[in-house]
């Protein structure tokens, strides 16, 4: 079995960086001590080794096919989904009363990371189901809960999120699928179409349940007129299931994730008999969806980071096996070639991969931890955790997605020609990871969210809290001679960012939102460098303390690798923030000033 994840690193983040067992102070999480946490992580790894990893390449080679209205996926799908369901993973976060285990998100996400690194094209299915079930659990009626939740949690039925329409992708306010009440709202007649729906139809389950956004006839225009419906492919009637007039018009031919369907759905097209069941209040659909969206966004960041993780270990293995070339100082051609890991530039590429993967994991788990605290705590602690979670979500989604693409590309470069062939998994990782920067909001949309909303919410309180958290790490690092110079560097980038943001806000007030938001994506990149610098300093602080306490063997190497990757990050990556600062402070307004017709 090839390595695709570092269990040691996950334990470092879960126990040493976050002390997840301390979440037991909340009654909901009683019993999640270190032993149970480790057992859960081990169980996740065992499941992945058995049901997920062996089929990663298989699912790509024998991709999903659309055949006369039905969608056939790889035969590993059904047992894989079932194994995860029976392991308790679809419902793990939920209450004991509905078969859940009240698992902290921090732990659940660490385990989910393992599943995704093994084979996200399969493991995304049960977790889509979890997302759909969450909407019903939080906002649905008791009847909807009773009908759908047991079938979703036992893995027999697939859940989906059906938002996108041909004219409404990034702009969900333009959704036009319609819903007409029947029998005073007993159910709604749904009409319209949805595109790119992940897991939207497949034969690895008995039924598919769409959590679908549509507009009730006569509802106000824009986001305030969108409602959420449960729309099953087969609806329960009497003792059986009847076809609910949800037709799959086709599945998309995709660059990657070929075993994981994105479906084009037609609603009420054949018989004018597609029934939807309203979830919660009318016209509150988008609000409900957005309450769950942050978790889905963290989930997307995890898929990206996990794919980059599998790619890193594939590259590392190759670099330790492939002899090629000699050291620049060695002119004797009769001597054997060295392994490519001996070349400094190959190590640079591996360090880049490691920096992206482990930096992303640290941030994703920290966000999950803030999520747990914000839900379980009260008062100021809950509010602060919520604000930090909100502020960091655009980075936790976009950084692994965007930088992950480069990390996998570097990983392919490590393999040279072999990386481009399908003898190795890198080409698949490269194709698979790309979409993460597109769905669950494009990187641009997250840039707009960060600059337009998150940094300014509650008079910039979230940004202030983040500043305090960064300062804590800077102060700790300043007490350690090996890390003090990096603490100073991070402090400088933080100050530069604050200054740039101040200027941007001022310009925005003078020249309007077009100018303020024009380079929001660049700002997100800039902000990401700061956040990742914080993540690396945080990890290095812990590693340095552990080394100072005395380590030997593989433990010593583990902590040394953390310090070394932190140094790499600060010497090779963080300086890139300076260039972005220059761009953001420029008054040339290049993109705004480029007339569309100039792009010939």
């Amino acid at each position, binding site marked *: 079995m090839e390595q695709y994840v570092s*269990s*040691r690193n996950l334990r470092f983040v879960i126990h040493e960086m976050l002390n997840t067992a301390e979440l037991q102070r909340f009654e909901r999480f009683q*019993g999640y*001590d270190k*032993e*149970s946490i*480790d*057992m*859960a992580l*081990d*169980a996740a790894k*065992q*499941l992945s080794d*058995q049901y997920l990893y062996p089929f990663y390449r298989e699912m790509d080679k024998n991709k999903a096919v659309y055949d006369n209205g039905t969608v056939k996926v790889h035969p590993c799908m059904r047992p894989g989904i079932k*194994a995860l369901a*029976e*392991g*308790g*993973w679809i419902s*793990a976060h939920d209450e004991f009363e509905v078969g859940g*285990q009240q*698992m902290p998100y921090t732990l659940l996400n660490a385990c989910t990371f393992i599943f995704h690194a093994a084979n996200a094209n399969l493991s995304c299915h049960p977790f889509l189901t979890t997302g759909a079930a969450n909407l019903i659990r939080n906002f649905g009626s008791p009847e909807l809960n009773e009908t759908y939740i047991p079938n979703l949690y036992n893995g027999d039925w697939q859940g989906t999120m059906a938002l996108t329409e041909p004219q409404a992708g990034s702009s969900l306010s333009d959704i036009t699928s319609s819903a007409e009440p029947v029998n005073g709202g007993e159910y709604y007649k749904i009409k319209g179409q949805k595109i790119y729906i992940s897991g939207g139809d497949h034969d690895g389950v008995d039924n598919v349940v769409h959590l679908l956004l549509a507009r009730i006839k006569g509802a106000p225009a824009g986001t305030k007129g969108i409602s959420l419906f449960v729309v099953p492919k087969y609806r329960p009637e009497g003792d059986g299931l009847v076809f609910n007039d949800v037709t799959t018009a086709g599945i998309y031919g995709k660059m990657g994730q070929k075993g994981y369907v994105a479906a084009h759905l037609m609603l009420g097209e054949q018989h004018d008999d597609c029934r939807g069941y309203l979830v919660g209040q009318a016209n509150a659909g988008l609000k409900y969806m957005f309450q769950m969206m942050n978790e889905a966004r963290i989930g997307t960041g995890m898929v990206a980071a996990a794919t980059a993780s599998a790619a890193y270990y594939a590259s590392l293995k190759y670099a330790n096996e492939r*002899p090629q070339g000699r050291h620049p100082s060695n002119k004797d051609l009769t001597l*054997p070639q060295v392994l490519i890991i001996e070349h400094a530039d190959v190590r640079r590429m591996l360090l880049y991969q490691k920096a992206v993967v482990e930096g992303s994991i640290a941030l994703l788990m920290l966000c999950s931890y803030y999520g747990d605290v914000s839900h379980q705590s009260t008062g100021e602690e809950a509010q602060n955790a919520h604000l930090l979670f909100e502020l960091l979500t655009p980075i936790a989604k976009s950084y692994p997605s965007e930088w992950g693409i480069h990390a996998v590309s570097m990983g392919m470069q490590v393999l040279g020609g072999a990386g481009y062939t399908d003898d190795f998994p890198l080409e698949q990782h490269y194709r698979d990871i790309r979409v993460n920067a597109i769905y669950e909001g494009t990187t641009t949309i997250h840039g707009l969210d960060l600059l337009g909303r998150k940094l300014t919410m509650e008079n910039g309180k979230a940004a202030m809290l983040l500043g305090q958290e960064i300062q804590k790490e800077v102060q700790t690092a300043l007490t350690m001679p090996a890390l003090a110079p990096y603490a100073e560097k991070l402090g400088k980038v933080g100050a530069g960012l604050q200054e740039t943001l101040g200027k941007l806000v001022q310009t925005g007030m003078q020249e309007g939102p077009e100018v303020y938001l024009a380079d929001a994506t660049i700002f997100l990149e800039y902000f990401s460098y700061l956040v990742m610098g914080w993540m690396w300093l945080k990890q290095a602080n812990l590693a340095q303390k552990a080394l100072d306490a005395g*380590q*030997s*063997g*593989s*433990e*010593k190497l*583990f902590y040394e690798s953390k310090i070394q990757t932190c140094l790499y990050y600060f010497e090779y990556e963080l300086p890139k923030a300076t260039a972005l600062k220059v761009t953001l402070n420029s008054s040339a307004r290049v993109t705004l000033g480029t007339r569309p017709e100039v792009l010939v």
Partner: protein
Amino acid sequence: MKLLVCVSKTPDTTTKIVFNAAGNELDTNGVQYIMNPYDEWYALVRALELKESPLGGSVTIINVGPDANDAIIRKGLAIGADEAVRINADPKSALNVAFQIAEYAKQGNFDMILLGKETIDYNGSEIGAMVAEFLDLPFISYASKLDTADGKTATIQRDIEGGIEVVEVATPFVLSAAKGLAEQRIPNMKGIMMAKSKPLNVLAPAPFDELSVPVHYDLPPAKASVRMIAPENMEELVRLLHEEAKVI
């Protein structure tokens, strides 16, 4: 039926084995431990299957070792054992382990005592036979199939050199499990969380004087790295095999 399953811990198969400076103990820094797969996948799971059959009964797991072993023991409970016993000792020999297990088993009226055919670290295959001897019970080793209709007699298939042997034996007996006896079970989250509330009884060891103690371990010589020789360069291959590897 009352079933006793003996479980031990071994380093994870990916562990790099390093010894302390004196060379007489494993350097445990950073070592990840797992339950010995032959105990877990085959002995324990088959015992659970028998308990879940119409015959019913209970499964107790036993480990001889320090409290650091509790995590491994809890995994056995998470997979489905009803209760666990840890004899709080730091045994230096297989004989001591077998003696402690036998001392406990004597009081338990167990119908079957199951354990893996060997641990994957020492590969000693000693404990089962010694436990049987201490208890004066039949010992069936390398079992790859175990059936019983009434819980009183069992038909057991044994893997032997070049084939299989089928034996019949009356309970109680001691059995060592080989591949095929059962299929690995991965604990589910419910089992993991319930494991906390199942009893793990810690007992003092019976007095025992070790007859032997390990004084030194040596690693096997490191494997030489692979050298690729182009297929058209057979002469070079022959030269290397003759002059460097000295095998022809």
